């Protein structure tokens, strides 16, 4: 039975539809990734799931509790790691954790031990008594994660948890998430970094403009939708040349935009030989050349015509 159920979720802010009919389920112990550019609706879904925002329409439940009818029950099973560093900079790590721990009803006898465990998990034990304002960005992100785990949630939501983080802290956060998942924690992970989604998530929902446009395992998405992409910079190209390029056997589609030809290919390596050959034959100059292997980025580009970081 799914731990999280989202059915036909709509959320509108000031006439802007942030989430437009989204449905998905998350099974216990699963990591589901929400992959999409800024403004795709990922954070709004988290806001609804943690009861911060009311759905405009649709049914949303966590562990069998409706987010609208039983928000208190939902709050007790979810943990949230927000995109903002939601910590008190004047307090140290222990003071931050102690305060939020009390709000999450962690028993007094258990609280100090739990704080120690969490600090050890995120690697901040040695910095426990330092004011958070003196932490690096990565350390703040790790403490942000620890606060999200204070209530010992069954379902953890992480909203872009690696934004502005150094590679070392990013790896530490990945390891934390994988370790928590191995212990059975169900996780919803939003990102616009396709590498993170591929690395961490069992399934990925690709979002754009408030909708889920694809939902599957990263491998299956790449296998079925991913194509090798080749970008060729040109000064000018006529319709006849475009038609000849489109007709190449390894090319699925070609578009011309801003002096760049974007090729979706069946096999990027083979298509490249054909494309270069035709450019030589017609004596057409290339100003740049870029080959993108099939991945979630290329899946997203194929599905939306946009880049993830747009």
């Amino acid at each position, binding site marked *: 039975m799914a731990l999280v159920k989202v059915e036909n979720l709509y959320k509108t*802010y*000031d006439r802007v539809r942030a989430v437009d009919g989204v449905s998905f389920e998350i099974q216990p112990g699963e990591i589901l990734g929400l992959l999409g550019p800024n403004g795709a609706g990922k954070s709004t879904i988290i806001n609804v799931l*943690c*009861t*911060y*925002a009311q759905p405009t329409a649709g049914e949303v439940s966590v562990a069998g509790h409706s987010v609208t009818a039983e928000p*208190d029950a939902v*709050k*007790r099973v*979810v943990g*949230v790691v*927000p995109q*903002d*560093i*939601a*910590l*008190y900079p*004047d*307090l140290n790590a222990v*003071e931050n954790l102690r*305060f*939020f721990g*009390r*709000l*999450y*009803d962690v028993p007094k006898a258990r609280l100090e031990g739990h704080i120690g465990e969490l600090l050890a998990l995120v690697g901040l034990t040695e910095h426990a008594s330092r*004011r958070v304002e003196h932490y690096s960005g990565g350390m703040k992100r790790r403490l942000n994660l620890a*606060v999200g785990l204070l*209530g010992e949630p069954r379902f953890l939501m992480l909203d872009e948890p690696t934004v502005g983080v150094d590679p070392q802290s990013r790896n530490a956060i990945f390891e934390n998430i994988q370790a928590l998942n191995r212990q059975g924690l169900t996780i919803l992970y939003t990102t616009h970094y396709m590498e993170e989604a591929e690395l961490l998530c069992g399934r990925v929902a690709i979002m754009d403009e408030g909708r889920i446009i694809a939902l599957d395992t990263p491998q299956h998405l790449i296998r079925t939708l991913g194509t090798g992409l080749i970008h060729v910079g040109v000064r000018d190209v006529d319709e006849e040349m475009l038609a000849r390029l489109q007709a190449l056997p390894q090319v699925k589609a070609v578009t011309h935009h801003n002096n760049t030809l974007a090729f979706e290919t069946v096999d990027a390596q083979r298509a490249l030989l054909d494309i270069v050959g035709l450019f030589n034959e017609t004596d057409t100059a290339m100003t740049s050349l870029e080959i993108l292997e099939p991945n979630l980025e290329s899946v997203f580009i194929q599905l939306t015509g946009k880049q993830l970081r747009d």
Partner: protein
Amino acid sequence: MKKLLYIALNELLLLRKDRMAAVWMIVLPLGMTFIGGLVFGAFGGGSEAAVIDLPVVDQDRGQMAAAVLEVLSQTENLNLETAYDEETARGLVTDGKRAGAVVIPSGFSSAMASGQPTALQLIVAPSGQTAPLLEGMVRGVTSAFSNVQTTVEVAIREVQRATGSADLDYEGIAGRAVATALERLHDPAVSARITTVGSEEEEFDVSAQIVPGYAVMFAMFSVLSAAGGILEEKERGTFKRLLISPVRQWSLLGGKLLAQFLVGVGQIALMFLFGALVFGMDVGHSPLGLLLITLATCWATTSLGILLVAVIRSRKQIHPITTLIILGSSALGGAWFPLFLMPRVVQQVGRVTLVAWAMEGYNRLMILGGNLADVWVNIGVLILYGAICFAVGLKLFRFKEA
């Protein structure tokens, strides 16, 4: 309820950790109150006016000149210096060493006795701040002596008319008339009787105005600044984190308001303690009245804070707006000067501020020697003021931004 207290405790912990807050909430108010006390003479004796040294050059040496010197010497806060000649006295004024000097010209007494015009000469520096004061004093003296001269003239005419004789002892009559008139100067037949209402032996304790005034003003700064902290938390994301934790909204807001309220009460208590220890401030006869007016003031201030946070939704806006409100209401509400010394219009306008109701209460308890019964209305109005601000603020307060 437990979580409300946790949130209040966390607010106080944050305050303790904020070093600048300690400066704003303790050092600055105490420092300003100390300076205010120095300026307005709260240390005792400061309310006495300064003594003005006034050189008087007597070039006449006659009976009338002596009378002028006597009248001037009996004027309060004047120290007559009669050893200088005119040139030296003029030099002292020119150099700014004296505010002014008086010259009694030669022939002053004989002119007075014979009814001829004459004048006292007052030398003042053009920009001297005490020049108008000296001018007023000298005008008072010349006016009195003008009356003396008139009296002498009338007396002689009347004697001439009654006796029909021109062979009279003019000098003798003039001398007696002058002597009588001078006596009357000191002991006038008609005088103004000024009745002072209130206890004669109680002097106005300046610190009893300054300390509560500054305490209320700085408590407003602290409380409204803490209210602005809610906006800071909203921008930082911690307010959202609190909202998605298992905490009721009323606990969240209640905890923050409780902390602000306690900060206000603590700050006023500290200022009063400072006033009592440093200035020997008289806190009146009603500790309960003081406590209740303080609690009511802090309740009203805290509620005003939540109203402002509900209406103003940006941290950049809240500081200038609260500063304007605090300074404006402090000036109009009597935090700087006693309300009862202000023009009636200002007193009426000031009534819209919570400061006016608080300060009137403190003035009644600490300056006019009132008791709890004298400040019930003030306490009631402050509680009502707070209740209205709280209700409207809560109605407009947005826990979530969308």
